[in-house]
């Protein structure tokens, strides 16, 4: 037994030490230029942008699918697009936003469908990177289940510090880079790029992730306690993928209504022609972003009107 344990330790020990070293090494030049570091600027927007504000919360369907300037000009609200990637997980997105919510803010949550159905609620590798090298102070937002969910990504993260290309080829990605966001938080560097091959989502009809829905309910309650407004909407999605995922999307729509959320639009409304997508079923090119933003603006306007004749948005907020 002793021999076995000694041998096992002598084989695993150096690898464990290597990994431990990797965790504590600073971020590589390549990683330092990734879009994840854009979250620092987005947190800054959340902290300093003045009221009246409309805060868009979700994954990359927002960063790649909104032109916030149109929102500012149409609704006379100061937009903040917090979308980076769905891989951060819904729980982290909500917890992080909640720390900055001010009285009178309008929060529009636009989660990608997998955030509500699959195991993305607690985030994945990108969240681990955000916590370890982008904004270490945010570790306090994690709960135990989330930390356990992220643990398996730790070895890969640690060992990435020893990959030579992380140091030698550190050119910033033109689309997924730290400088891909405009002053509102929209990804804009792809607006002039040609469309890429978009592979549709697979047919799926998985169940709803109850933990994710419960998280949204808690978030709504917290937002409303702060005298802010919580609205929820549907992510944009390429038409082919939409049809493949329709049974699942319908389940989500039903949950939204059952929970009594203020819902903007319908899933069908945000189904996008393939020609308006950029490189994934959730990412739009400039024409797509304009079209989708116009839809969202209309839906917000409709909601404002539905608040009652003569009741302005500001009155509602009061």
């Amino acid at each position, binding site marked *: *037994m002793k*021999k*076995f344990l000694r*041998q*096992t330790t*002598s*084989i*695993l020990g*150096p*690898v464990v030490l*290597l*990994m431990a070293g990797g965790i504590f090494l600073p971020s590589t030049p390549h990683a330092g230029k990734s879009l994840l570091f854009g979250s620092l600027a987005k947190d800054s927007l959340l902290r300093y942008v003045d009221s009246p504000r409309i805060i868009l919360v979700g994954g990359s369907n927002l960063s790649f699918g909104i032109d916030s300037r149109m929102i500012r000009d149409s609704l006379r609200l100061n937009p903040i697009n917090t979308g980076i990637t769905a891989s951060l997980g819904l729980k982290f997105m909500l917890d992080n936003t909640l720390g900055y919510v001010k009285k009178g803010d309008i929060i529009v949550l636009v989660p990608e469908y997998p955030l509500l159905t699959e*195991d993305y609620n607690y985030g*994945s590798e990108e969240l681990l990177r955000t916590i370890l090298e982008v904004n270490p102070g945010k570790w306090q937002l994690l709960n135990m289940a989330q930390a*356990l*969910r992220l*643990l*398996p*990504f730790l*070895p*890969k993260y*640690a*060992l*990435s510090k020893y990959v030579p290309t992380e140091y030698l080829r550190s050119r910033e990605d033109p689309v997924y880079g730290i400088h891909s966001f405009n002053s509102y938080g929209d990804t804009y560097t792809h607006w002039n790029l040609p469309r890429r*091959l978009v*592979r*549709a989502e*697979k*047919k799926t009809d998985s169940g709803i992730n109850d933990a994710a829905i419960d998280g949204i309910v808690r978030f709504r309650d917290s937002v409303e306690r702060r005298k802010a407004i919580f609205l929820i909407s549907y992510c944009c999605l390429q038409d082919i993928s939409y049809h493949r995922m329709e049974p699942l999307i319908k389940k989500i729509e039903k949950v939204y209504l059952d929970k009594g959320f203020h819902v903007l639009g319908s899933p069908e409304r945000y189904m996008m022609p393939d020609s308006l997508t950029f490189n994934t079923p959730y990412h739009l090119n400039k024409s797509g972003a304009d079209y989708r933003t116009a839809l969202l603006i209309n839906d917000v306007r409709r909601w404002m009107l539905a608040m009652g004749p003569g009741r302005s948005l500001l009155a509602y907020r009061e």
Partner: protein
Amino acid sequence: MLFNSIEYLLFLPVVFFLYWLVFNRSLRQQNLLLLVASYFFYGWWSYSFLGLLALSTLLDFIYGFQVASPNRKKARIFLWLSIVNNLGILGTFKYYNFFAGQFKAVLGVLGLQADPIVLNVALPVGISFYTFHGMSYVFDIYKGKQKPVSDPVEYAVFVAFFPLLVAGPIERAHHLLPQVRSRRIFDYRQAAQGGRLILWGMFKKVVVADSLAKTVDTMFSHYQHFNAFALIVGAISFSFQIYGDFSGYSDIAIGSAKLLGFELLSNFKFPYFSRDIAEFWRRWHISLTSWFRDYLYIPLGGSRQGNARAVRNTMIIFLVSGFWHGASWTFLAWGLVHALAFLPLLLWSRNRQNVDNMVAQERRLPTLSEMWKMASTFAFVTIAWIFFRADKISDALGYIGHMGKSIAASPGQFLTLPAGKSSLAYILPLVLGDWWLRKDERNLTIVSQPLIRRFVFWVAIIAIATKYNANRSFIYFQF
């Protein structure tokens, strides 16, 4: 709990230490620990199905005594009760919805309308494996190969032993039960073999299979967008994905069992080095194939009662084997395709040409003739896998048809590198590793020099850690 999860990485050492250092003085305590650990392991996925596992175990434990009765009529009644009970559980959870759907479709064709009740429950993980464990125990007692076990804990450990609970190897009572009932002594050599097998299994799963999965998923869901060369790469990638995934799982299972002093049955013996389809089936998912052979094919008369009976029995065993994998026409088609390839060998008595020898047994490299035989067998198996992987028969036919159309439209495509070419980088280490190990499948000594061996281990561990994906389940968990 998945073998490739962080939970298992913590669970296994804890069980190992408790097993050898705390409960090592009493066999009963060790078995109790194994039982608790196995139920914990299973309950980690879904505790709500623990009751079903316990019930299935209890019933077969009781049937075992009845089947041992000298009164053969009574024994036969209880044998059938066990079969009905196990197949009933399996049929309800795994096949009911399929048959309800087919029933509705048939009525629809006849112009009638029906809305059969659909069960909205998840398929309990491992149900196809633990029900087969139970049946093998009762069958063996009925045949007099095994005496009923008097200790329910020992029997429950046989059924639920965590390394094999959810995806096999499907053990036999006469092989595993004696090990459960005898005292285990820590053996360095066995434990070291177990550790190496776990590492090799993880490499096959995490580095090879999971990496290939990306190419495979893309090719199979968007085959219309790719040319024939890319689709061939996609199909070959799936052949190695499923092999890396399932044989990797089996290696981790066998390795984990070795750490606890158990020897499990072999499940894979380098199937892609087979020289004909009969040899392939002696090397692929061995524990299932031999289960069907012993408990279905031979009781039906095997091949000893004339050609007509042999053809019928062969068709039955292949179709049942296909259907065992899942309630879908694609699995039946996969079984049928294999049956059609196997039958000529059987009828011309060429199915036992390569029984006990491995290709290039005494040589480093195969002969040209052996290479041709291996390549043609692999090509056939790969085409059959397309049916296994596709969601629908029409998708499988579409995939194959699109390959044909693409070749006809653009024969020159083979002069340029195909999409998904990077998959080949993952296949190569697996093929080379298997070729190296083919004569000594479980020892995995690799090289005798400790430093070089250690270096190989480090590279493997780092590769596993770098490729680790916490979300990828094992393909055979769904069966």
